[in-house]
């Protein structure tokens, strides 16, 4: 599917806890988007920060009575995201998308555990809707540093059959990391497929726990990216070839071969300090 470039009108802006959510009129992107894919956004007149910003797609409204739209969720971390957080309805955003390789649904309906860290949870809502449409039972495990940094736990509760919450400081749910309850959850729920989105150390830990339990796991990585189209080679992730597990890891562009990878394919040891 060839991505498109669209001049998108902002349909809505809302605060989502500690995060920001922007809905864009993007009929071409909305039509083609699949869960796990992302868009590259450029907004405002100030070109002193010249690069686009990549965001996972949180939700999609397919064209119906109105034009198709996509929603993204982000944290303000610098001048680029600050400019996006200042956008209001009718402002214009230049968008490329949908980009990247999406999550692959299970071949037959199985119980799926969706593990989200911080605003990484946002990308899993779109996936949860698709999985439910495919008659998969969806469970959520979401974590963050504090209660305020969780993304829409109520939304996850609505979409999921069960919801497990953890925070580093214990201000909501269980105190600890989102990976702490995973072994018990996988055993109790009879999970057949794990999907995860969040910080790299979390993805490494989720992949390891899933592998130990023999459950397939797909992760959506977040790596610094300049282009999103495969030409800058910034967003690489070391991956091993399943045919040659002992060969040195190959640097795969997460914008083309990812952002969704098989958890067992990523050479986590190269990315995350033990």
């Amino acid at each position, binding site marked *: 599917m060839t991505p498109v470039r669209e001049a998108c009108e902002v349909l809505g802006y809302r605060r989502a806890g500690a995060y920001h959510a922007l809905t864009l009129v993007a009929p071409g992107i909305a039509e083609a988007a699949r869960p796990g894919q992302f868009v590259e956004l450029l907004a405002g007149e100030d*070109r002193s920060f*010249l690069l686009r910003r990549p965001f996972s797609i949180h939700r999609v409204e397919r064209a119906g009575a109105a034009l198709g739209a996509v929603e993204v969720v982000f944290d303000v971390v610098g001048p680029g995201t600050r400019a996006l957080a200042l956008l209001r309805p009718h402002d214009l955003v230049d968008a490329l998308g949908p980009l990247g390789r999406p999550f692959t649904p299970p071949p037959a309906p199985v119980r799926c555990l969706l593990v989200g860290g911080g605003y990484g949870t946002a990308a899993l809502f779109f996936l949860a809707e698709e999985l439910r449409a495919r008659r998969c039972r969806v469970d959520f495990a979401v974590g963050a540093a504090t209660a305020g940094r969780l993304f829409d736990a109520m939304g996850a509760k609505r979409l999921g059959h069960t919801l497990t919450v953890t925070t580093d400081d214990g201000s909501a749910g269980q105190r600890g990391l989102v990976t702490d309850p995973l072994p018990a959850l996988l055993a109790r729920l009879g999970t057949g497929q794990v999907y995860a989105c969040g910080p790299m150390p979390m993805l490494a830990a989720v992949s390891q726990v899933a592998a130990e339990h023999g459950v397939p796991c797909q992760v959506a990585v977040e790596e610094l990216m300049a282009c999103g189209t495969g030409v800058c080679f*910034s967003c690489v992730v070391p991956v091993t070839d399943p045919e040659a597990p002992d060969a040195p890891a190959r640097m795969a562009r997460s914008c083309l071969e990812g952002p969704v990878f098989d958890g067992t394919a990523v050479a986590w040891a190269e990315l995350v300090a033990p």
Partner: protein
Amino acid sequence: MTVDLTVDLCGVRLRSPVLAASGCFGFGRELAGWLDLAQVGAVVTKSVSLEPRRGRPTPRMAETPSGMLNAIGLQNPGVEAFCATDLPFLAGAGASVVASLVGRSAAEFGRLAARLAGEDAVHLLELNLSCPNVEHRGEVFAADPATAAEVVRTVKAAAGQPVLAKLTADVTDLVAVARAVVDAGADGLTLINTLLGMAVDVRRRRPRLAAVTGGLSGPAIRPVAVRCVWQVATALPGVPIVGTGGVATAEDAAELLLVGATAVAVGTASFVNPRAVVEVTTGLERYLIAQGVGSVAELPALFKAER
């Protein structure tokens, strides 16, 4: 009014003077869904080495005001994979191809040139003598006139295509390096590569790039590129120059063409707009019409050096 955008670059006829710069356009295939590669003046490929290179660890990129630092580390699949998969694709798409070469010694550059000498799909060679993202400063061949000249001489003895030497502005006397490589047989020059830079994450008190330093590109470096093209074109009239550095619009391209470039290459702008190369090309056509200039090749002669 119709304008003539074709240029002669070192004896090779190109349909437009707007090239896709090395390292910013992959191997052409990545952006083939966004534009017609046959409309690109030429695709300058990502630099190719004898053996595959894995590149640097991440983070490889840091955005800076009006620019960005990169430390990719010359990741590429190696010349054999390039010949087996990338060249046939580019030829099939009707692209003019400038193969960018990188080696760790003059001998390696020579072997690369010899390997590509019989490849009809390659129209020119560009020697990346100036990538700042190498393990040793000694691999920045363009830092020294004699070292740069030795690489060019070795390549010219083996090459089947005209040779562009890509130089760096990170030297005290760029004209001396340019003169040395032209005397050694370079058919043309590409000016400039990224400038060596560094950025610090002050909150975490460490470099923003895993490789510590990286190459600065984007509009931030355009005035340096314009100065370098003007300096070298003035000192070495008649030597074809591909001007590159922060070109994002037709006006940016015109700046470099006016001060003496034969062609320009669009780099970082392709990261933001995958169609940047063709949009700069059509914009340049409009600029020539507005200026009443019939051919892009006339631009350098129309430049008034006195303010």
